[in-house]
């Protein structure tokens, strides 16, 4: 309150100052500023007058203004995103203007390297998304909504867990290292750097997609309420990102939250209700049908009819059909999936003008997951205030608080493996209760999992103009984030051994940036700007976990327990304390905004660097030519709005490895002479010569606008990542097992196209804007360790190996080539020398089961030895998409508007492990626990063309021959039969909204009221046979353990008072 008073008094003082400067005769001019297309008033439009232009006022919430100006003066009306209009003061002193939306994207403001400039003079590649584009769908993580909106930003919303985000890459993959195996194999995440209101936020270390963290694993970006976001800017090329230093190597995404911008306080309330429905569930065979199917299979394919009978009679769930435990037809999926009703509320109070403004935002977001026992709730309270008494001094303070509560049920942030197994349980098993066998379901339902994340960010910005053109600024922020997990697994689920798991971590980030910038204009032609800034960053992180086994009973959930031998506790080994310091300089010159030159250079030092690594340096050079301003093209000005070419080159250098990789690590060893010992960790040998990873990027772009209706941006880029870090096994004669080296390189190159067209321009009642963007990205492996030309990443789990080969796409699936199914026995090749048939595995099994016969898959024998083994894999398929993009259509008629959005991904190969696993369920009709998953349900196979009898020309092998299953493994994951094209077009969003008539709502004291209905994630058009070509891991594997994406139907309301 005290500050408010001080600030107001300062403001008043300034007001008097302005008055005293007035010399001519003053008149009061009134009027309204309207949006020409929407016919709605524009609050916060700025009115300028005089020479040089000085702000004289602003419109209020109803678009009305009241300013005092010279009687012969001119008024300039400005509003961000609209064309400015200049009007002479009229005789009656009333001016009503309608501003037209600015289509010329060059006038948009972009922020690059903490400096704001118009696109016209920016040489970097960036795309801006405004609040309007993301207002109609409530999501926990705003990145979900950027899908298909930015060319070159590939987002796959493949993780439906509330509060999580899917995988995202800017301009292809930057790291090809794979961790984990099988369905849990993931690429090392290379998420872009997020900068929220000028402060970098690290989303790469503990929260990333594909990282199964010990804690809740909530992305920090999920803590930002979508309603509070004013603008998102995606920086793609090296010129734009190099000033963000090493952390910007994977692209930078700037998020700006809303600011107050109206003299009269505006209270805006946004609410929405949505129904989230699970995707269509798969069909299963239930009850008697399943039992008969199993019995039929056994009788037909057991070694003999009588052995089959014996086996059936020895298997209670098949023979004892009257036993109520087995006499069921349980629909397991219905226990796991649910339709939920969710709501969000957000109140934003803002006001003020250029010299002083404020905003307070409170939000509530609740999303119940479509999987039972998973949910996400977020509470937000944030504020910011800007005080700018004059053009020389500016102070911005902001504070953001977020609290989230979430539950991951029996799974974790990434996958619901228990669910996948449980939901595919056999229908013969009884419905869940504590006395039944299926723990997967009870695990999901009964595990008490409570995750809490608290984030507090405080931010203070001060800017002062020391001399004319010379500005100094300082930004300081402090972020405290803590995450906690409480998980209790009842003993009734785990053989009587209950378990308490408790996790707690805290992370402190202190960030400071000091910047000096100088701007100079000479002869209204030569524009110079230069800046220098330093950045300091200090982050410490510590996580503690406690696992307590065997508490007294299921009602006492800790802290006492009796099984001390198996109980663990302590600080996790991801403890870190990292400092970094940077210095950056930027120089920019333009000649009449026609020729632009940008030079930047940045030094980064980090406490994780090795002693031999030194400072990493990120240079960038870029030029821009706005050729439409050339005299010889003057004549085209009636159809060419703007046209320019940009070229840029830059490097981002990222220090790699942790401090342990550089210096080694001591670990506590065993006891020696009753004394604890400390020894060297012999896992990884220290390597002080670790060099940083270098990302070099070239970018060329062409931009043009025609007839004030069409905009086109075409960009092409070449991005080379060198010195990628990788573990290398070293010879076992060394004491150490591995060494980390920087020896891999990968290149991405591609094209991006962005088109937008106002097919029916605004102002004629009906308007229609159509925009489309697409990116084509190719990646090439350019260097491998030790100079070899190929390397295989062996997948121990599913055998779906990944091949790195020079000159080829960097991640190649290596699979057996399935060319069909043997229709009859005579089709099986015979070794001319030995007379033996083609067989699986080199051993000639005594029972002869490994020889192929009719109904088996026809796998290509690549090396021609009549044996199917590791030598028969072929490089087939690329798990990374070739083309990604989106289409957006916006139609408006009077108060109604219809927004349709679609996204597409073309040419990517998906490994359909889900279908493969479904077929594999037929391998164990007697439930002999071959796969250790418990009794699994059977799905109908009618939709698949599988082999039934001799002479069939089938696509899928015979699923019923379970005796030979172990030898042949016809539905193995690692074959091209289950590699499918994952191209899709997704109808992402349809929104119909209506702005209520101003005059009507004014009666209720409301200045603006908008209602809308949205259908989100509506339908995916694809030839893919699995459930959803998008719900696959970043390596293109459709694992049934993933969390499906919900379809949402939303009804929302925006009110402004």
């Amino acid at each position, binding site marked *: 309150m005290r500050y408010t008073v001080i600030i107001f008094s300062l403001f008043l003082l300034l007001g008097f100052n302005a008055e005293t400067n007035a010399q001519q005769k003053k008149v009061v001019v009134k009027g309204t500023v309207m949006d020409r297309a929407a016919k709605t008033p524009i609050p916060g439009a700025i009115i300028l007058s005089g020479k040089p232009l000085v702000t004289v006022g602003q419109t209020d919430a109803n678009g009305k203004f009241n300013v005092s100006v010279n009687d012969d003066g001119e008024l300039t009306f400005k509003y961000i995103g609209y064309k400015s209009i200049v009007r002479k003061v009229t005789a009656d002193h009333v001016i009503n203007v309608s501003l037209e939306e600015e289509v010329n994207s060059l006038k948009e403001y972009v922020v690059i390297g903490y400096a704001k400039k118009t696109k016209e003079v920016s040489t970097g590649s960036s795309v801006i998304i405004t609040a309007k584009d993301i207002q109609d769908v409530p999501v926990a993580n705003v990145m979900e909504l950027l899908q298909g909106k930015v060319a070159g930003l590939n987002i796959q919303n493949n993780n439906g867990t509330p509060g999580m985000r899917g995988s995202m890459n800017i301009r292809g993959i930057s790291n090809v290292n794979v961790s984990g195996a099988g369905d849990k194999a993931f690429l090392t995440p290379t998420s872009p750097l997020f900068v929220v209101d000028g402060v970098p936020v690290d989303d790469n270390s503990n929260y990333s997609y594909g990282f199964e963290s010990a804690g809740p694993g909530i992305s920090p970006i999920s803590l930002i309420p979508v309603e509070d976001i004013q603008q998102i800017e995606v920086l793609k090329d090296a010129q734009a990102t190099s000033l963000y230093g090493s952390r910007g190597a994977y692209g930078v995404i700037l998020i700006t939250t809303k600011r107050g911008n109206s003299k009269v306080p505006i209270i805006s309330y946004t609410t929405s209700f949505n129904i989230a429905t699970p995707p269509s569930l798969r069909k299963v065979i239930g009850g008697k049908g399943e039992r008969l199917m199993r019995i039929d299979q056994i009788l037909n394919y057991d070694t003999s009819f009588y052995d089959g009978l014996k086996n059936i009679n020895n298997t209670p769930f098949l023979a004892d059909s009257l036993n109520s435990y087995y006499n069921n037809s349980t629909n397991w999926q219905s226990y796991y999936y649910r339709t939920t009703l969710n709501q969000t509320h957000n109140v934003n109070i803002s006001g003020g003008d250029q010299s002083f403004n404020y905003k307070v935002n409170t939000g509530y977001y609740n999303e119940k997951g479509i999987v039972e026992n998973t949910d996400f709730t977020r509470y937000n309270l944030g504020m910011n205030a800007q005080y700018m008494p004059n053009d020389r001094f500016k102070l911005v303070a902001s504070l953001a608080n977020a609290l989230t509560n979430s539950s991951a049920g029996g799974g974790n942030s990434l996958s619901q493996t228990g669910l996948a197994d449980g939901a595919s349980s056999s229908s013969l098993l009884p419905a869940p209760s504590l006395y039944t066998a299926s723990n997967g379901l009870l695990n999901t339902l009964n595990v008490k999992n409570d995750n809490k994340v608290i984030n507090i960010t405080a931010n203070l910005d001060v800017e002062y103009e020391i001399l004319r053109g010379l500005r100094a600024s300082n930004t300081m922020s402090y972020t405290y984030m803590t995450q906690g997990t409480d998980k209790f697994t009842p003993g009734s689920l785990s053989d009587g051994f209950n378990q308490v798991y408790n996790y707690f971590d805290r992370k402190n980030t202190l960030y400071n940036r000091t910047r000096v910038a100088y701007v100079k204009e000479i002869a209204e032609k030569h524009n110079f700007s230069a800046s220098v800034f330093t950045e300091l960053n200090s982050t410490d992180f510590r996580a503690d976990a406690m696992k307590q086994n065997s508490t007294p009973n299921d009602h006492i959930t800790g802290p006492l327990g009796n099984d001390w031998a198996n109980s663990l506790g302590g600080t996790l080994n991801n403890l870190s304390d990292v400092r970094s310091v940077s210095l950056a300089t930027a120089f920019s010159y333009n000649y009449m905004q026609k020729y632009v030159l940008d030079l930047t250079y940045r030094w980064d030092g980090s406490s994780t660097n090795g002693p031999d690594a030194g400072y990493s340096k990120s240079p960038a050079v870029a030029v821009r030519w706005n050729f439409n301003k050339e005299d010889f*093209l003057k004549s085209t000005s009636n159809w060419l709005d703007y046209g320019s070419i940009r070229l840029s080159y830059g490097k981002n250098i990222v220090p790699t490895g942790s401090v342990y990789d550089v210096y080694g690590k001591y670990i506590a060893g065993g006891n020696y002479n009753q004394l604890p010992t400390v020894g060297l960790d012999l896992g990884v040998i220290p390597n002080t010569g670790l060099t940083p990873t270098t990302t070099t990027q070239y970018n060329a*772009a062409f931009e043009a606008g025609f007839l004030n209706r069409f905009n086109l941006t075409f960009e092409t880029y070449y991005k080379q990542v060198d010195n990628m870090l990788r573990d290398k096994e070293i010879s076992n004669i060394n004491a150490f097992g591995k060494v980390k080296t920087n020896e891999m390189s990968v290149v991405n190159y591609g094209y991006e196209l962005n088109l937008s067209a106002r097919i029916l321009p605004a102002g004629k009642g009906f308007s229609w804007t159509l925009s489309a963007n697409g990116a084509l990205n190719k990646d090439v492996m350019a260097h491998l360790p030790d100079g070899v*030309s*190929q390397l*295989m990443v062996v997948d121990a789990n599913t055998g779906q190996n990944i091949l790195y080969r*020079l000159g080829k796409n960097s991640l190649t699936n290596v699979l057996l080539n399935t060319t069909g199914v043997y229709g009859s026995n005579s089709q099986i090749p015979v070794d001319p*020398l*030995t007379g033996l048939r083609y067989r699986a595995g080199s051993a*000639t099994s005594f029972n002869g089961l490994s020889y192929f016969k009719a109904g088996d898959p026809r796998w290509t024998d690549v090396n021609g030895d009549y044996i199917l083994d590791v030598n028969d894999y072929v490089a087939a398929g690329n798990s990374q998409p070739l083309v990604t993009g989106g289409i957006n259509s916006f139609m408006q008629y009077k108060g109604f508007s219809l927004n349709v959005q679609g996204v597409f991904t073309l040419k990517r190969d998906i490994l359909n492990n889900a279908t493969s696993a479904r077929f594999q369920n037929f391998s164990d009709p007697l439930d002999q626990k071959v796969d250790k998953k418990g009794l699994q349900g059977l799905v109908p196979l009618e939709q698949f063309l599988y082999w039934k009898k001799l002479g069939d020309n089938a696509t899928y092998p015979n699923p019923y021959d379970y005796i030979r299953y172990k030898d042949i493994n016809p539905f193995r994951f690692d074959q091209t039969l289950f590699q499918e094209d994952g191209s899709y077009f997704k109808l992402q969003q349809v929104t119909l909204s209506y702005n209520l008539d101003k005059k009507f709502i004014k009666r209720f004291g409301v200045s603006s009221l908008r209602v809308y209905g949205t259908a989100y994630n509506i339908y995916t058009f694809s030839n893919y046979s699995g459930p959803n070509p998008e719900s696959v891991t970043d390596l293109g594997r459709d694992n049934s353990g993933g969390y499906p994406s919900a379809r949402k139907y939303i009804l929302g309301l925006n009110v402004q008072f």
Partner: protein
Amino acid sequence: MNNKYPLASLCIFFIGLVLLVSTVGCTKNLPENRESIGMDTRFTQTVYSPVLGRNTLFSDNFYLGSSSQPLTFKIINMRTRDGVAAPELTKTTPVQVWTQPYLGDEKSVAEIEAKRKIENRPLFEVREHSGQFLMWSAANSAAIKTQPDSGYVFDVEMSNSGGRRYFRDFKLMPLKERAYEPSEMDPKTGLSKYVGLIPNSMFNIRGERTGNYMFFSEVGVLFKKNAGAGNSLTFKFVDSLFKPIDPNKFNLTKWDKLVHGFNMVKTNEYVKYDVAYPIPLIAYRTDYTNILGDKARVIFRYERQGFGNIREEAYLNLDFAIFEPGNWEITVWFTGERPKFSND
């Protein structure tokens, strides 16, 4: 106005060209997508000693390392130890190859023969993509140097789209034919080291004179190839004086399932079948082979009433392989006393 349009279009075209060239120029220096030839790739076996007269396949002789498959192998420079070219191994010769699988359920020799055919092939080959070496049964010691001669030397060329590598100085040191297994022949000299082989197992066979159990030392097995056309296999049982023993005395023997032969002729002196050679035809387990499938298994059984009215079942089992076609005769020679078939 009109004359200005082409200028602008030209300008845009020129800009597009620059963009295209700049990307193409960048990707020019990327490595070519070629298969890999690993420096760690090697053959793990360099000396090959096949026994002539039978099909031999050398597997598991190659370590792939970091090469990409499929690779292509070629034998080059086949030569004798003193460097003289050895065309006898590389020139094509008619060999018998399988075209359909032998399963052990064929009903006649003709049906078996229909599953193989004659093809012209080099006697010693490398499998084109796997690096396995194979020696065909048509190779014989009349044309090919055998041990104790030091044999042949050859090189192998390995290639794929990534390049080629040469592996030098493989040794091929064939052994002389041994027409049947087990064999009494010395593998190097080809001379018999002793007379007669022993059966694989004997059980409960008592001597006629003493009533004692008989041992391996009292039974010999003789292989003999008789002259004449056709392929047949004859079993005979003789006593120490080569007087025939009636095969019918082995009264439990399943004569029709003894070997995969047809047109059985059983007299008081011998049992004869028309067969296809080699025996067994392939190393595949059938009713007529041992568990591994690499040898034919014959079991001669009989029963008698022993002392104290106990039924005694006895058998004699022989596992063998014969590689050379012809009219073979296997004689089981009881060198001591005759087996006792009569009841006590």
